């Protein structure tokens, strides 16, 4: 009997070529996925992530070279009073040279002092323990009231705590005359905000939420806040009463009603260790009756050893 012709069975004809193509495509896909997942295109990496060179990181700070010049720098809250005091100091001592730089913040003032770039740092917040541990010497010299300052167009004169929270929280967006409220924030950790928070604890939460939501503009310096308050109708912000009085600024101060005490912050000099003679002479002047009188006259409360 003749053997029947062998017919190729469909199930035996394995699609090798198809499997090969699929495997090749899958490998390509896997390579692409690995490239994408592992982030091989992460881009440039900054050099400061490399291990530090032997002997430590070289500093870019150039210490001051004019020993006869007394240089002060720090928080913007200190500037109006300190500049007035420096002018009075130089006026009474021919040859004395004192420079008060623009605001670099309390932290900047401390570090610039520690770096030796300035002689005296100006702080408007309590000095931290880590700063004290680096040998910072603190000399408080004034206390300033922290107020809610507003553009002169704002009709209100008093703010209740609930109103403050409603304004900063965005629930209240118009003044009684219908004009728009434009709240101006300082950056987180600002000494003025911290002073308000000490008497109105909910203020911290409200400002945190405002930061996260980006509801109001944030200003990083006292000078910027001052200019914004002066030029923005309906503007409201935390400011120093002493700065307003010392500079005769046409801003409206809104009294905070219903709190046990008025928000305030202490202003202090910091030095890297005991103050140098020139710095000590200046501090002595500030603590002198003349200096204290000037401080008081400008709207600040003299504090410190002379008080």
């Amino acid at each position: 009997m003749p053997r029947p012709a062998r017919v190729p069975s469909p199930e035996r004809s394995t699609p090798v070529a198809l499997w090969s193509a699929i495997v090749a495509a899958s490998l390509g896909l896997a390579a692409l996925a690995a490239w994408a997942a592992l982030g091989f295109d992460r881009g440039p990496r900054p050099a400061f992530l490399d291990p530090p060179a032997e002997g430590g990181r070289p500093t870019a700070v150039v210490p001051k070279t004019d020993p006869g010049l007394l240089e002060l720098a720090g928080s913007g809250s200190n500037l109006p009073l300190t500049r007035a005091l420096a002018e009075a100091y130089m006026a009474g001592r021919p040859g004395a040279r004192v420079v008060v730089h623009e605001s670099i913040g309390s932290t900047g003032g401390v570090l610039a002092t520690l770096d030796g770039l300035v002689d005296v740092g100006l702080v408007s917040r309590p000095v931290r323990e880590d700063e004290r541990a680096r040998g910072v010497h603190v000399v408080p010299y004034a206390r300033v009231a922290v107020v809610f300052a507003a553009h002169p167009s704002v009709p209100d004169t008093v703010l209740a705590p609930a109103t403050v929270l409603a304004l900063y929280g965005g629930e209240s967006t118009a003044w009684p005359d219908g004009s728009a409220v434009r709240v101006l924030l300082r950056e987180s950790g600002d000494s003025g905000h911290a002073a308000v928070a000490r008497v109105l604890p909910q203020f911290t939460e409200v400002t945190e939420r405002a930061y996260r939501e980006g509801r109001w503009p944030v200003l990083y310096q006292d000078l910027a806040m001052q200019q914004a308050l002066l030029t923005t109708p309906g503007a409201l912000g935390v400011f120093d009463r002493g700065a307003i009085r010392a500079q005769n600024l046409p801003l409206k101060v809104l009294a905070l009603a219903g709190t046990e005490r008025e928000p305030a912050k202490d202003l202090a000099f910091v030095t890297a260790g005991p103050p140098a003679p020139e710095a000590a002479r200046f501090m002595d002047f500030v603590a002198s009756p003349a200096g204290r009188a000037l401080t008081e006259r400008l709207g600040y409360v003299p504090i410190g050893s002379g008080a």
Partner: protein
Amino acid sequence: MRSTGVPAREAGWKQVPALARFVGARMLPLAVFLVLVVGSSAPLASLVLGRRALDERARATAGEVAGWIRGEVQQRPGLWRYDTAKVVGHLRAYAVGEDVDTIVVVDDRGTPLELGGEIERARLLAAPLRWAAADVFVGAERVGAVWVAVSEQRIRRDALLLLLLFGTLGVGLAALMFGIPLRAAGAAELRIRDLVARLERSRSELEALNRDLEARVEARSGELRRTYERLRAQERHLRELSGHALALQEQERRSIARDLHDSVGQALTAIRLHLQLIGERSTDGELARIADRSLRLVDEALEEIRRTVQNLGPAILDDVGLVEALRRYCDDFAERTGIPVHHRVDEPAEPVPGGIESACYRILQEALTNVARHAAPSAVEVRFEAPAERIRLSVRDDGRGFDPRRGESEGHGLAGIRERVELLGGTLSIESGPDAGCTLRVELPRPTGRVPGPARDAGAYDDGT
């Protein structure tokens, strides 16, 4: 036995219809690839696009911070570095998007201006960060740079979520893509098998029907064949009967002719001789005239008897036989008409029945008479042969010829020849044309057996006597 060593899964696969296995073997890699493509394309696209967005965000943030730093440097040369910490710290905490991990400001030497302490190098190295930088220029002097790190954690998380979703979707689609054709192929194969089975049944039924039909046709054909054979036999019988009748008729005519010739003719001849003697010896004139008139009447009667005998049957057949009779007639025709006749008359292999002899003789007579009347040939050729089965006679002339389709209807004597031939079951063919002469062929069958009935009793059909 394969089943003992085949794993359960393979055994299950073997139970799947062949077409479904064939489709499944080709759909499976495509399904796998579909899972990979669908599952990975969206996460990959999300990762790539997310990284682009992150890079763009990092560059934008770096540029924004660099712009702010530039203003600070311009306001406080030398001291600007101490004021960046609070700004950068605030920006890190609030003012940048959730993907911005850190902002580092470096001076012109690349040293970070971290005012709060050392940067978290180990964390930054370990974290999935992407960096972008913007230089800070004051005039033409590069005073520093801003580095912004964005985290890939969110887009990786999103990509993983997409991988889960689209992987599930891909598996579902692949299952559909794999399952639907597989089920369709299985169903199609079952239907095909059912169709094939039905076709097989139909074919079997058709074959049975065909066999039955063939049997019926065979039976019918056999019946028709038998009927045909019976008709052929009847026809043959009728032909033989007619031939026998013709033979009997011919025999009877010859008998009558012989009787006329032998008895009446002899008697009249004797009477003539007597009358002739009476006329010669009578002295009486009146008697002599009566004898002479009687003699003329006897001559007329003899002539009439001779013509009658001639018409009743060619006596020459009885006298000299068919072959010699045909030859003599050819010679007589040539002598009488002046037309040369070339004849070839063969001796028959077997004796020719008397009816056929007469028919052959009369056909030759008729044919040559036609030639003499119509053809005006220069010569005539006659051929006779009588082998065992057939008797053939042909007459060919080179005369003017005629149209065979009109020959019989125009009285060429052909109708009588055809009638005579058909009575004997033979065939007649005429080949002629204008100026093409004419060839007449007659083919007569020999009788196959004795004819029952009167013909058998006569016996003259076979022996011609």
